[in-house]
């Protein structure tokens, strides 16, 4: 499989994020530069507190950078106001949460259909689309289950379906398998990878698990708010399997 390297979908230049707590100044991100191309699956790994979530949140437009540029599909998102950011997310971004974050009052289909509601899609169409998406993640039977009536793995698959249903260009996932056991994690990872490949989506995933990171095409190693190295995994897939 060969990626068209000439089609960058995310460009990050000289990105900084500072938090000041009292007189303390925490450098959560300390000068980050990289480019991600369309259809790539990238994982971000690093120790706890290294700045992975901070980076992801900024890419998704949930937090403002202190300094630097983030260009996604041609939009300088560091320049957008909150209203525009919501619109940007609605049109370009899907999000998978670590704690699933399904709405407890809604069943699986309704949860998946929710982002379509915000796009003003009619009830009939959005429920049909959501049902199709649930089939794709293998939850045909659990369609009308409430989140509390599903296992963690099933809930996260609903989460994946919800992120995918709006057909976003980019999917962000912050430790999507953090609350799952290793077998279920692998299942969910394979599912995500499969769909992302099929639909040529860009997936950016944060994890602190090296094994899960190795599902990705490229692995960004972060420490103390800086990129330590970017590991190209496409040619080493065989090698990785041997290592395990």
């Amino acid at each position, binding site marked *: 499989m060969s990626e068209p390297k000439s089609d960058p979908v995310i460009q990050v230049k000289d990105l900084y994020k500072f938090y000041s707590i009292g007189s303390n100044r925490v450098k959560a991100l300390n000068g980050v530069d990289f480019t991600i191309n369309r259809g790539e699956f990238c994982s971000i790994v690093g120790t706890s507190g290294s700045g992975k*979530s901070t980076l992801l*949140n900024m890419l*998704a437009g*949930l*937090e403002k950078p202190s300094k630097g540029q983030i260009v996604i599909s041609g939009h300088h998102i560091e320049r957008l106001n*909150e*209203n525009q950011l*919501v*619109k940007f*997310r*609605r*049109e370009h*971004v899907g*999000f998978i*949460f*670590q*704690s699933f*974050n399904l*709405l407890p*009052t809604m069943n699986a289909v309704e949860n998946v259909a*929710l*982002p379509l*509601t*915000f*796009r*003003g899609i*009619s*009830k009939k169409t959005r429920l049909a689309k959501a049902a199709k998406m649930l089939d794709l993640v293998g939850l045909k039977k659990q369609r009308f289950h409430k989140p509390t009536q599903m296992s963690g793995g099933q809930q996260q698959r609903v989460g994946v379906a*919800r992120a995918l249903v*709006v057909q976003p260009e980019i999917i962000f996932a*912050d430790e999507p398998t953090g609350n799952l056991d290793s077998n279920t994690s692998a299942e969910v990872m394979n599912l995500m990878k499969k769909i992302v490949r099929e639909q040529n989506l860009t997936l950016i995933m944060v994890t602190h698990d090296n094994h899960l990171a190795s599902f990705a095409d490229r692995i960004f190693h972060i420490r103390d708010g800086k990129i330590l190295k970017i590991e190209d995994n496409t040619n080493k897939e065989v090698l990785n399997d041997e290592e395990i």
Partner: protein
Amino acid sequence: MSFLDLLTMSASNLWRRKLRTCLTILGVIIGTTSIVVMLSLGFGLKRSYLKQVESSGGLTTVNVYSGNDYYYWGDEDSSSTEKIELTDEVIDEISQMEHVKFVSPILNAELILKQGVYQCYANVKAMSYDALEKMNIPLEYGSIPTSDEEVRFIFGNNIITDFSNTKTNEYYWDTGELPDVDLKGDFFAIYDTDAYFSSMWGDSEGNKVQAPKKYIVSNTSLVSGGVDEYNEYSYNIYANIDAMKKQLKKVFKNKAIPGQPTTKSGKPYSYWVYNEAYVQVDDFNYVTDVQKAISDMGLQAHSNAEYVESTQKQFSTIQMALGGIGSVALIVAAISIANTMMMSIYERTKEIGIIKVLGCSLGNIRSLFLMEAAFIGFIGGFLGLILSYGLSAVLNKVLARYAGDMFGTGSSVGISYIPLWLSGLALIFAIFVGIIAGFLPAIRAMKLSPLSAIKTE
């Protein structure tokens, strides 16, 4: 998001917290009811007052009295202005005025009516056929007397109580029993009352005097309504003025007619002078104008207009005070809405964050919360209105008697009255209060950070 989606989403959010929603709605119900019922008391007061005024002389009526025959009201200086007599000429002049619907002279004739042992001292108001017709006197039976027939009466529905038994000298008010008078039957009318009294007790010198002639009056009409009901015609006896004049001339021949001025030598004038005239104005708003114009002619003019207006103003003040008291409950309800919304936003911080990450626009989030608050206002206002109508009905039932005593009106007019526009306004106001109360919470929800969705507790 479509409007319908917003609506169902906010409704289902309210439904999720049924108990709390109900309690908040209860507050709005109480608030709306207290305002509406308080205001309804004011409207009831005004309405029953107007009804009362209407029944005791009308709102568009101006009563005119000749300048010198009647006692003066307040203005002592009126003695300096030229006083004129109410003659046909003057009546004509008044009828030419703007906004005067019609005018009729009133010729007062005092006479004695007799039937069997019963007798009545009657003060007959003789008016023109046109006036009697246009006054729209509700008749139980009979017709308006015309100029071409013999003198014929319209009895007020309370006139029967004026008959006394000549044997026992007892009235209805003494016995509590209606006199056995056949109102449809014939009456003897005695026009020359002076002669009648002289014939009974002797004249000033104690000589016997021959009893005056009696005339038969029949085919009397009756104003509709029972003896207990009261309207502006209840205590009057009406007759046709032309027939009455003819009759009086016949009775008194060359003598002076009682009530008519005479020359120094005691000879009657060749024309009629009335001491009263009845003027109808076409609209309540012009009554004071017409009244003023008539006074400027040197006549006495009276109407209810000024009195009614100032009383209505007083009632408005009372009503505002009542409304103010009622609105306290609604203010408390508004605070409770704001409190409920605030709590639900704290509880749903994460949920709000999630829908924000999923692309729900800020405007939609604000609308969601405003709609929830408006819903509370709407439901509370609606139920509050139903309660208000119920309460108003109960008040009218229970207090009808007291109200009747207080204002002297019949039980037909309640103490509490909710005009339709008030209920519409109250509903809109309740929704508006909900929206105002929900405004700050909604802004707060809108400004919540989407990051709250990601942070795991």
